[in-house]
């Protein structure tokens, strides 16, 4: 006699907690074969706004942490993901209809992506910063800092790797994020949230919403307390309208990408601000 399994309830991830959508809405997530996998929470405008509040509250602590500390937290995510890789392989196979081998390699790359970015945490300031030889008796130093809260539309066709590829470059520099996971492939995103919740990632640093990006993204694009907008997975949305909405508060915007964005320092620096500090030198 086979044992009756315990299916998981998939909820949102906001401020380090796992609430249901305040709207009470859920939607069915199906496998590529059309089989029922789970009901995912369908996030509302209110959920998105709550997530921004949580993300904003987390900016001070996360951006104020040392790069060494943030690097270790990101590395810890990779450690835990490694330990739960079987679960992610299963979810990717079920959701994306790929072979176990393909799913397994995607998990590999997702883990390695965390590692690659983890190492940047205490280096990007050196690489992107500059001591400036100004013509006068001044100390002058430029350093990049995180922009603040970044809203992200995750790639729609890659449940885990796509998500990691947009979260990691934003948070490694000290930003906090509100991510809208792939609408059709939301389950690995919430499983990733479980990894995050146990990886020393402070609550609110990474907030994950599931549901309709078309419904939620406009509220994030126009939200005055969001500093950046990564439209990586918004290719099929009316993303120009999102970009226009973002212009009202002059958000930094990354345009949609086909597929999954490659890891690069440019994605990281897209949501940073260069601060230049001058100080007089006395004449001796």
């Amino acid at each position, binding site marked *: 006699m086979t044992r009756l399994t315990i299916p998981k309830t998939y909820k949102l991830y906001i401020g380090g907690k796992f609430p249901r959508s305040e709207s009470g809405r859920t939607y069915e997530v199906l496998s590529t074969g059309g089989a029922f996998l789970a009901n995912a929470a369908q996030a509302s405008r209110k959920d998105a706004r709550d997530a921004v509040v949580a993300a904003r509250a987390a900016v001070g602590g996360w951006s104020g942490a040392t790069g060494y500390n943030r690097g270790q937290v990101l590395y810890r995510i990779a450690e835990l993901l490694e330990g739960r890789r079987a679960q992610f392989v299963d979810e990717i196979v079920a959701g994306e209809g790929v072979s176990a081998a393909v799913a397994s390699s995607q998990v590999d790359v997702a883990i390695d992506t965390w590692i*690659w970015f983890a190492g940047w945490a205490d280096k990007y300031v050196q690489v992107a910063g500059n001591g400036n030889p100004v013509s006068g008796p*001044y100390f002058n130093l430029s350093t990049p800092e995180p922009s603040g809260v970044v809203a992200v539309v995750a790639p729609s066709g890659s449940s885990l790797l796509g998500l990691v590829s947009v979260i990691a470059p934003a948070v490694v520099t000290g930003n906090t994020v509100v991510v809208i996971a792939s609408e059709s492939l939301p389950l690995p995103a919430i499983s990733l949230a479980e990894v995050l919740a146990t990886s020393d990632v402070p609550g609110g640093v990474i907030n994950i919403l599931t549901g309709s990006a078309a419904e939620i993204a406009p509220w994030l694009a126009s939200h005055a307390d969001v500093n950046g907008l990564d439209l990586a997975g918004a290719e099929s949305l009316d993303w120009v309208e999102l970009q226009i909405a973002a212009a009202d508060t002059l958000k930094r915007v990354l345009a949609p990408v086909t597929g999954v*964005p490659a890891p690069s320092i440019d994605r990281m620096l897209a949501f940073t601000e260069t601060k230049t500090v*001058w100080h007089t030198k006395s004449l001796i």
Partner: protein
Amino acid sequence: MSFLEYAAAPESTALLNLRDSYGLFIDGEFVDGHGTPFSSVSPATEKKIAEIATANTEDVDVAVAAARRAYERTWSKLSGADRGKYLFRIARLVQERSRELAVAESLDNGKPIKESRDVDVPLVAAWFFYYAGWADKLDYAGLGANPRALGVAAQVIPWNFPLLMLAWKIAPALAAGNTVVLKPAETTSLTALLFAEILQQADLPKGVVNIITGDGTTGELLVNHPDVNKVAFTGSTAVGKAIARSTARSGKRLTLELGGKAANIVFDDAPIDQAIEGIVNGIFFNQGHVCCAGSRLLVQENIHDEVVDRLKARLSTLRLGDPLDKNTDIGAINSREQLDRIRELSDIGDAEGAERWTAACDIPADGFWFAPTIFTKVSTSHRIAREEIFGPVLSVLTFRTPAEAIAKANNTPYGLSAGIWSDKGSKILAVADQLKAGVVWANTFNRFDPASPFGGYKESGFGREGGRHGLAAYLDPEARGLSSAPARIETPGLSSAPARTETPGLSSAPARIETKKKGATK
């Protein structure tokens, strides 16, 4: 006779050789504009200086086409070393003609000759000299090997530092291998047109820089032209937002340097003599027509009265008047429109309960003038503490603790600059860390240098001008990180994974510049 009485020492305008009217500078020549021409007046006298052409749609098309042609046929085929040589030539010509440029700038803009002569024009030459040296060293700009030029850059600049803003825009654009169509502000076109003459003397290949004049409509036509690859704008936040909206979808690279409402924070352990000078320089430099002006003075409560008293005493020694007089500290407000704006916001300051103090000084009969003004008893909710006045008006607020100073300083949608005055280094560094501002001046204010990046956080815009960072605004990096980043396609079976490609539009970017090609001729 008090030391304030003095004999006028006006700089002669005899060395100016101005024309009665100026056309558009397109494809290396001055040509007629097809819009309705307008007069440029001296804000100190309201007298007409010259008639300036307006570029209409057709003229903008012709200018952009000239820039495109120059990009494809000439500029992108030159070696970086040769591009640099042209920029060095320009820097030298600016130095040679510096007196003439300074006089023209003060005449047209209204700023004191001591500023145009000692700040604006020397920085213009320095900017070209600095970026000239970058032209053949772009591989070292931190953007990977062989970064690519973007193509045609549309640049729209403001009236507060007409020639300096031109240099901030044109020098890095050309060094990076782009060609340019630049529109100066309507009220301050003159020195840009003199600069066009310098380009002719430098024998810069035709079409590499085109200068078109006109009002905001011309600027709008330019930034929305479908054949420009890059838009760089310095000006108001409202216009900056409009440009961000109108260029959405276009894939045009955008940098915006917009408004500010900088906090200048004075702690009770500040070097007070220097701080007073810094506060004055921070807000009364260039009549306060400075986006990064220290327009909000945050002074620690226990030294408030002393600082305000000393400020008043210092402001009472400033000389307001003829911009061409070498004694002048405060020149003319650039336009009647701006004067109206300053008066309106100052009146709102009165109405909201702040206390106005104005330096006693004679206001000339003609022209646009506003005497140095301080508002005390200002609270963070007052409009004079929130909105950019862009004039010689200082709002004074107080604070008790560093945390309160930081909170008040950051309580603005802007984030361009900030000042900190203290003799305690650890406090300065801790406060600087917390300020959301692109430039932080500690124990100094309003310092500019071509090697130093400048630009804002939040609604003060994005992108940086100056330094190595300033090049990034005009270059596309090679895709970076790929080789050293986690593998993407090596695993068998992963071919069904989504392809990883670059951002849409990148493939349509202009062909990259051959920066290492030697011996190319124009």
